[in-house]
């Protein structure tokens, strides 16, 4: 659809246009695979850069044997809980800071100081506090996702149209109810923007944490297969987690579109 206005494919029937556009969308990925195929066994030896076909076969093997599922589910659980907590805390914190000076004064310094720290740098500390495993991974995902959600919620709640608040007050809404009847719904689109930014960050944080501090999960699989020199499995797991992150982003965008029919 994005290309339909500027290209001659407009003459084609709509379903055919859809297929053509899908193919056009995937061309860049095709080019990457092609270059990968040419480089592998050419400039770079196949034992450190396995060919796409080898990696593809390995992906199939990982799914057929079922080996990948337990790790994938553990990783998804960690992303889900970490992201879920960051949404819950981030929205409360962002809206709270925007609408209450004491809350803002209390948390502002904390957020400003932690903002420039790469959250994955906290993994060694988190291991000391929570040990190796799920809790540490969840903490890192949570911390990494928190800021984009807080910042978006904060900016939106700070800029809620004063006339909307007044309109509700004139119809009898009291000060406290304004928060969830007006401020919260008015900020939902920006909160969704924050979550959209947080989803890929969650996967980056997850894999980073699992590479250092885990006995399971996709990051752990990538690390262990790399350590024993099994590069086809390592690449296969990288491709799988990338594909899962891609699907998560697309699914979220789809859900957001349906939820925000009014924007």
């Amino acid at each position, binding site marked *: 659809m994005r290309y339909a206005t500027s290209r001659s494919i407009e003459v084609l029937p709509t379903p055919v246009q859809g297929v053509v556009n899908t193919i056009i969308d995937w061309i860049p990925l095709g080019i990457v695979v092609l270059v990968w195929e040419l480089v592998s066994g050419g400039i770079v030896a196949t034992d450190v850069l396995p060919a796409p076909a080898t990696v593809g076969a390995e992906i199939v093997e990982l799914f057929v044997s079922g080996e990948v599922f337990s790790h994938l589910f553990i990783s998804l659980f960690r992303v889900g809980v970490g992201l879920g907590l960051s949404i819950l805390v981030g929205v409360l914190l962002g809206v709270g800071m925007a609408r209450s000076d004491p809350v803002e004064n209390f948390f502002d310094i904390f957020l400003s100081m932690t903002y420039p720290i790469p959250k994955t740098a906290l993994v060694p500390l988190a291991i000391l506090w929570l040990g190796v495993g799920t809790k540490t991974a969840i903490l890192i995902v949570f911390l990494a996702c928190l800021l984009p959600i807080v910042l978006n919620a904060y900016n939106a709640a700070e800029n809620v*149209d004063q*006339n909307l608040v007044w309109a509700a*007050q*004139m*119809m*009898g809404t009291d000060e406290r109810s304004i928060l969830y009847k007006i401020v919260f719904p*008015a900020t939902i689109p920006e909160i969704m923007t924050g979550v959209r930014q947080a989803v890929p960050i969650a996967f980056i944080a997850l894999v980073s944490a699992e590479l250092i501090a885990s006995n399971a999960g996709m990051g752990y699989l990538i690390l262990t297969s790399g350590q024993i020199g099994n590069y086809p499995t390592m690449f296969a797991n990288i491709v799988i987690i990338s594909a899962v992150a891609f699907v998560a982003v697309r699914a979220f965008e789809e859900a957001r579109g349906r939820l925000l029919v*009014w924007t």
Partner: protein
Amino acid sequence: MDGRVTISGLEKVYGQGAERTKAIEDLNFEVDGGEFVSVVGPSGCGKSTLLYLIAGFLDATEGTISVDGDPINGPGTDRGVVFQDYALFPWRTVYENVTYGLEEDGVPKDERQNIAQKYIDMVDLDGFEDKYPKELSGGMKQRVGIARTLAYEPKILLMDEPFGALDQPLRESLQDQLLDIWSDLGKTALFITHDVEEAVYLSERVLIMTRHPGTKKTVAEIDLDRSGSREEIVTSDDFAHFKNDVWKSLHEETQTEVTL
């Protein structure tokens, strides 16, 4: 009749120290219950401030505003504002916007539906109940704004240049619609505008305000025969006479602005 607004010794100061500006100074005025009064004045004369003070959104620095003798203390459902930029809740449909005040008032669902439908019909929006504000034109949005305010039945309508953003034919049709509603429902109406013709056409009295700080310059009584059509009214000699009076009075104020 209920809905009398009494303004006495009203003063509104914004800011402090060097930033201190007086928006309204020593304003005394009364709007009778059921009366239609427009407020005109040069830009920056504090006419919107006046409306928001009466609505209770802003606090007066000095003086009092009373409704039927009781001093106001913050916003209340005896007064309803129609905003220039509509201020509709974008996440609510037309129907849900109109029922908001009724929900807040605890009106049962069946009754809410009847009341909302009555006002949606009154502003000619039947069939648009399930649309969201973003799907509506400016004129339709403002009709939703009017229906939403009418639905919880305030005694006093406070309108802040409600048709300011609309083009001329649409303004005229909404003005006529508003006049019909006003005479049917018998509410007090305070209408802010910068359009002299609009003020004279709609109102029984026009309050002309001075330039900064704003206060009462003069009040024009618009004693028009309104039995005819719009065309008959606006082409009448009386209409031209009242319009000229208000225009001249307002012009003196804008002249001051230029010479300063």
